């Protein structure tokens, strides 16, 4: 059951990722990406990480992609009118394929045999997140977000 769901969502993710890359209209790309993200969220859930799964939807699908769509609509972006150069495309495709193969060589078999029991409940994740090494990083992210907030307001202001 879980495996079937996994492959369904994996196919969905890959398909919509191809839509992201293949569509010339950025709005379609954005919708494709949203589907990918939701599918990935489901996969996270299937891999036993409910908290991250929900967070993925909230942050990525719920916030970041809304921002993307908002900007796309605000700027009234249409479809691309020029194609990318053939050489670039070819080289990029070859390199991407090479990278994928190499990563496959690294990753496949790299993962240790999975442990039997796995607890990634919110409480467990929170315990790791709010203790020694990560706590300071967590605090630092608040500064990062503040900086991003201020920065984006300053950058997007009409009168600099």
């Amino acid at each position, binding site marked *: 059951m879980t495996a079937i769901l996994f492959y369904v969502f994996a196919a969905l993710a890959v398909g919509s990722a191809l839509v992201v890359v293949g569509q010339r209209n950025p709005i379609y790309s954005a*919708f494709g990406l949203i589907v990918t993200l*939701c599918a990935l*969220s489901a996969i996270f859930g299937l891999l036993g990480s409910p908290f991250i799964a*929900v967070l993925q*939807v*909230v942050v990525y699908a*719920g916030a970041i992609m*809304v921002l993307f769509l908002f900007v796309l*609509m605000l700027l009234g972006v249409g479809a691309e009118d020029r194609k990318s150069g053939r050489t670039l495309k070819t080289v990029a495709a070859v390199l991407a394929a090479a990278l994928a193969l190499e990563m496959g060589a690294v990753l496949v078999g790299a993962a240790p045999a999975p442990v039997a029991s796995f607890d990634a409940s*919110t409480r467990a994740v929170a315990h790791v997140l709010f203790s020694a090494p990560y706590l300071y990083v967590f605090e630092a992210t608040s500064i990062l977000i503040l900086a991003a907030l201020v920065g984006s307001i300053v950058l997007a202001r009409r009168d600099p």
Partner: protein
Amino acid sequence: MSLTPVQQELTIAVVKVVVFFGALLTLFSVMTWAERRLLAFMQFRLGPNRTGPIGILQPVADGIKLFFKEELIPAGAHKWIFVAAPALAVFTAFLSIAVVPYGGTVTLPRWGLLPAWLQGREITLQIADLDVGILFIFAISSLGVYGIVMAGWAANNKYTLLGGLRSSAQMFSYELALGLSWVGVILLAGSFRIQDIVAAQDGPRGLLHWNFVQQVVGFAVYLVAATAEVNRTPFDLPEAETELVAGFHTEYSSMRFALLQMAEYVNMITVAAVGASLFFGGWLSPVPFLPDSPLWFFLKLFAGLFFFIWLRGTLPRLRYDQLMAFGWKVLVPLATINILVTAAVVLFGPGLLASWRRMLG
């Protein structure tokens, strides 16, 4: 008839889904009628009162009418998205209400009519009891904006696009306040599970333990943000008739229009149900001498829905810049301060209380 445990679970789930969504659809259609009637009364009119006794069959008539209307897709529209948008809106709306509990756990009676495996079985009055329930609602409701944005964009029309833009900005902004307003409640309960949150509000003094007492700021923020989140007056700018014709659903007709409407009402029901669970103790009884029961939950739910209708009958619409300023400069800081205070109380409260107790003998 013997079923494997998995099949049993599945059967129960299907029955729950069917019953619950049947009830929800009924509630939705009654809501459309109730809203029109109540608004009419507030404005010294009568409202729909011809179809059936006191007009109660009006939703049926509306449904039939919408069903038989022509489905129009504008020539310049992005067809697939235009079609998918209402479905997505309804889908997210239904999905999020699935984790709201409307009662605690009940034990089925040992009636002879029931299959043996059902007798004495404990059933949770909730479709899905998620560990991250409230986060799930948050996640799904944040997806809800896509239905509107897609609808607004796909119609390829200035007014719908503006409606979609407005709603994305509005929902995006108020979602923050909405989520933050929950945090206080979550801190108090120490869990994302809505069952736990409701249970945390139980106590010997009835409604005094409910969160709207301790979390009065959070509740106020929730009330405002939730109203904005479901695009209800006074925050119904995405569909402001005087400015945007009908906003994002200008180009929709027939059943797709009905679906968008349904999404809006179901969202409203969700928000009221979540409010009832988080701030008004869900199915808990307000007074100690009456038993807890799902009836209380529905009573609170109806009160919440009435409140939304009442708001619509009372308040004028906000201006767009006022809306954004209010969301970011009032609600978000207020909710943040609420979190800080709540967290401080949760963290230091017991210690301080203990030391005071110790000091006072």
